[in-house]
């Protein structure tokens, strides 16, 4: 199922966001990876958005005097910071172009750009479901439609550490990997709550690193990814707080990462049916996960 947030006021789907343009050091970036970037290299992003104001007013039951604005914002995965451009009053509609100059000293990793339409000031619509509070979100870009840009060399990937387990800090020397998943606070930063340790002293891991393209390495990698996903899904569906708050976790939190893992493999199931599957038909859960992850495919 898609991530869905039910808002206590009317929304619109009439906004038509245009493509982004991103330039780094005045060079247009077409790929999803910015290769020549560092902390001193300026980044400019721009986009246009079609704002059919009459349709928006009708959808949200706004009063003629209500105003609304376009918010363009970015979020950086490495610093965890987010910022927005100046809010533009688009109550009159049209196709405004917004551009932002990002401070390169505040970004790194994966840059996510997104757009929202919000109520400016108090709303005076007469419909009981009309938005009234300043800042009420009238429309927002779906997370999968947000533009992402990997700032090369700086992107944070799955938090993984390769260490020798014989030191005794992580696990037993004969173990191959250990996933530490802290789900006590599901709003905590995913980068803090997840850590995969891979045993540098294990022959399988040495094989993985030494013969990266061989079938044996592919098999080890496939098994590792499958096991990590399996542990994450089981930790999520077994957590009452996760099930209760599913769909509402904040960006960058461990809750959101667990939601994304589940969404990837079971887009067709809601969280309660997935939990029921785990509890009542574990064999089916296991083979569905193996199949959807293409475990050991191509070997």
């Amino acid at each position, binding site marked *: 199922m898609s991530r869905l947030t039910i808002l206590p006021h009317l929304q619109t789907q009439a906004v038509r966001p245009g493509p982004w343009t991103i330039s780094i050091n005045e060079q247009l970036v077409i790929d999803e990876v910015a290769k020549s970037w560092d902390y001193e290299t300026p980044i400019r992003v721009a986009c246009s958005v079609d704002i059919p104001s009459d349709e928006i007013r009708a959808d949200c039951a706004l009063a003629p005097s209500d105003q609304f604005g376009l918010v363009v914002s970015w979020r950086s995965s490495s610093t*965890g*910071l987010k910022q927005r451009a100046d809010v533009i009053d688009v109550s009159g509609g049209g196709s405004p172009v917004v551009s932002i100059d990002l401070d390169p*000293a505040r970004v790194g990793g994966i840059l996510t750009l997104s757009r929202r339409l919000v109520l400016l000031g108090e709303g005076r619509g007469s419909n009981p479901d009309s938005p009234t509070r300043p800042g*009420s979100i009238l429309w927002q870009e779906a997370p999968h439609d947000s533009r992402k840009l990997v700032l090369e060399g700086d992107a944070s990937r799955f938090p993984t550490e390769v260490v020798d387990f014989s*030191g005794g800090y992580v696990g037993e020397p004969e173990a191959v990997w250990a996933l530490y998943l802290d789900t006590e606070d599901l709003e*905590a930063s995913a*980068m803090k709550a997840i850590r995969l340790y891979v045993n540098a002293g294990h022959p399988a891991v040495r094989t993985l690193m030494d013969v990266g393209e061989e079938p044996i390495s592919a098999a080890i990698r496939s098994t590792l990814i499958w096991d990590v996903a399996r542990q994450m899904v089981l930790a999520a569906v077994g957590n009452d707080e996760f099930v209760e708050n599913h769909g509402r976790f904040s*960006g960058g939190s461990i809750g959101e990462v667990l939601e994304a893992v589940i969404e990837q493999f079971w887009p067709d199931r809601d969280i309660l049916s997935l939990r029921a599957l785990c509890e009542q038909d574990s064999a089916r859960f296991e083979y569905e996960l193996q199949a959807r992850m293409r475990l050991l495919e191509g070997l």
Partner: protein
Amino acid sequence: MAHVWPRLPHGMAMELLSEVTASHLGALLEGSGLDHQLAAPVATGGTPVPSDHIEKVQESVRGLAEQHGWPESLSRTSVSGFDQPCSVLLHDLMDIVPADAAHEGVWSFLSLVVLPDVSKWRFPDAARDRMIGAPRNVFRRLWWRAEVLGRDALTGEHALGEDELVQIMERPSLSADYRVAREIANVVMSRAPQAGLARSELMRDLAKRVLRLMPVISLDALEDHELAYEIETCCALSAEQLISVESNMGT
């Protein structure tokens, strides 16, 4: 212009962690340094921090630790007495940009090469997540507190305590936006004490309440006075609920 700091590779950091775990504070002081052969700043994007600048940070943090009794153990109640000024000190002196301060290697270098004596004194069990430069690192979390919340939240009579700081800083949606984070801190700090209402509990409930508001209201789009109103309203609701729960438990 800000500096870029040396980054200690993870593998070397794990090796140094073994040494720190096994060593006493005096040996760590003697073995500390201002550089490491495997630690280097990012190749582009700023001026590498000069050695005398690192030394200044080292001396200042050590001086603060000595004021708080180093090498004698730091009591649990004295922890914030060290952490809060250390946050401000690191932020003022390191001259590092957020992008560089988001890297594990920078903090591993500071904790395990430059100041292992203070790192282990602050966290005597030398737990991995405190010594390696991950988000909960001994110095990394202090620098980020000052960066996000500013010095007002960390100094003075009404400064936030450890539990209160964690409620903001370990929730990425709150700490991502300086304005929201600082407004939450301001509202809690400026609230007059109320009988039966622990400030840490108030912060905990307020943080959750603001998080629930975020999918509905775009807090970052609000004018300053509108944001203050929303956070103050959330805080009043949190206080009301906590006092109600407290009084029901008492009856």
